[in-house]
């Protein structure tokens, strides 16, 4: 039940959005994430976006992993 998938918002109409992941389009609800914008990635859970993903944080996390991998060589 915890499963949520990162998907990209391609279109917004009111409280609903079209999203895309892996070449597949879906229609979802933005009732829980009214701040989401076209181009954002959101966590999709049972038809609803539950969180807008933070691209800056994602990039920083990956950089942290790269630093750790380099330090351990």
């Amino acid at each position, binding site marked *: *039940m*915890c*499963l*949520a998938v*990162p998907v990209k918002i391609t279109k917004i109409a009111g409280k609903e959005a079209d999203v895309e992941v892996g070449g597949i389009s879906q229609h979802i*609800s933005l*009732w*829980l*994430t*009214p*701040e989401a914008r076209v181009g954002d*990635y959101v*966590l999709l*859970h*049972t*038809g*609803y976006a*539950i*969180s807008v*993903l*933070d*691209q800056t*944080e*994602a*990039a*920083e*996390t*990956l950089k*942290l*992993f*790269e630093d*750790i*991998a*380099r*330090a*351990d060589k």
Partner: protein
Amino acid sequence: MKYITEFRNSELAQGLISDIRGKSKHKVRLMEFCGGHTVAIFKYGIRQALPANIELVSGPGCPVCVTATSDIDKAIALAMVPGVIIASFGDMLRVPGSRASLQQARAAGADVRIVYSALDALKIAQENPSKTVVFIGVGFETTAPTIAASVLQAQEQGIKNYRVLSLHKLCPPVIKTILDAGEVKLNGLICPGHVSAVTGSNAWEFVARDYGIPCVVAGFEPTDILQCVDMLVTQVENHASKVEIAYKRGVTPDGNLQAQKIMAQVFEPCPANWRGMGLVPDSGLKLRQKFADFDASVAFDIKPEPAIEPKGCICGEILRGVKTPADCRLFRKVCSPENPVGPCMVSSEGSCSAYYLYGED
């Protein structure tokens, strides 16, 4: 940035594994609360990658698994009411109740439909105005806001034949129950990533503060889980106990305030019956009085006969982290995904199902 493959990079994972091995000196037991983490840990071979001094135990974070037999019986009783269409997430269908499962009720003529989303259940209600659609609401704080939103949407759109049987549960109270029971000594908590996306990492402050146990919120890709273990081990080695977020791209300390607002608007806490743990105060959600029109427990007076627990099934002890599926006499011999005795074998996030599919013989 697509947020998936980047976090499955094996070189980055190797770096994290080396880092953990380098700094982890003490024996530690970490609990992953969430069923999604249990499966990911198996799928990505996390246990094999970690040094032997780090033990991972599973907790009661599978909402289907912790649904009490008596509540399954209620859902089945509702399925047998003429004019009712049951809408449910797929996992619930094969969970055995006292006498049958929802799937068996369907085979016996009940109208039971699998849905991916509460929105699908709303659609079924709109398409079947002469019937009553009862959505079996199972899930923690990740899912409960979506069901709350569906109730508000039903209200907004004037859909009058939609009801929810709320079996929703909250995570922090059950974690408190497990810690208070003291059956399992924990050195760290791998906090559920998507529950925390809604609740915020602040929901776990009481664990660090009152029990001195380090908490780190983890995502679900292999590097996410390894990063979480790395951060927990660092805390343990430094004698720290605080709440940290590893899953920073999806989780903040405050969480999703809109989702929390909608959840609080529609639901209020109530006592809930957890498989293996009995009644836990303020750990369930029921619809508020003003949404009584959408409450299946108000619309239908269902009193099923006393529940019969499956004989020999130790799902309850597995959910509390005191036993593993390997300890169960029925595991693999009688109980399998094709012939499940208890919910932990049915659910895609259940410990027994994960051990069966991914564990070594």
